[in-house]
């Protein structure tokens, strides 16, 4: 990553953590006071490097553990809510933000995290081995 790509990557995460729904080159450029075209190029490069994934409209689709699109997986801390890319990442948002809250999955699954303890426990099943995570990131 170039120094500018690092700034753009951090800007993407800041916007997603702030709850911005659509994070695209325009939003990142405005937040950082940068040229939109330069930011768009950085976003494409970050996607090529598998630091993020972008949607067809070139907005940010995934900046793990955040999802830039609505999914069945969510994390919430108080009144704040974020979409996650999978059940693991719903837990990961709480871990990354170091907050007590809830992680929501499919079929009504809800985990509560309080002081680092996850209840009611249960299992996370990963289908794709670690070395192939980015082969098909949507499936992963």
């Amino acid at each position, binding site marked *: 990553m170039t120094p500018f790509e*690092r*700034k753009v*990557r*951090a800007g993407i*995460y*800041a916007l997603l*953590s702030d709850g911005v729904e659509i994070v695209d080159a325009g939003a990142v450029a405005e937040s950082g006071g940068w040229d939109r075209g330069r930011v768009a190029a950085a976003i494409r490069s970050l996607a090529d490097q598998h*630091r993020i994934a972008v949607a067809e409209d070139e907005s940010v689709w995934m900046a*793990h*553990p955040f999802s830039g699109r609505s999914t069945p997986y969510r994390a919430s801390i108080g009144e704040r809510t974020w979409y996650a890319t999978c059940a*693991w*990442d719903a*837990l*990961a948002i*709480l*871990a*990354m933000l170091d907050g007590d809250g809830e992680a929501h999955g499919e079929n009504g699954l809800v*985990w509560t*995290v309080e002081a*680092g*303890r*996850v209840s009611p*426990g*249960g*299992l*996370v*099943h*990963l*289908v*794709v*081995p*670690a*070395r192939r995570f980015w082969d098909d990131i949507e499936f992963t």
Partner: protein
Amino acid sequence: MEVWLDRTGHARGYTASAQTMYELSRDWYANRMDEKWQPPTAEEAEAIFRRHGLIGEFWSLG
């Protein structure tokens, strides 16, 4: 788990406790939001997995 595998048609992968995955996340996503974050090398990533008991072919990056 068996019911879920039957319903979804997925092959069996790796199953870890939610607690383990939460604790892994604290390491895996540490400093992720910082501008200075560096992606871990394969060796560093495997070391993180190992610290949480995640070993074997599924977690190998070699």
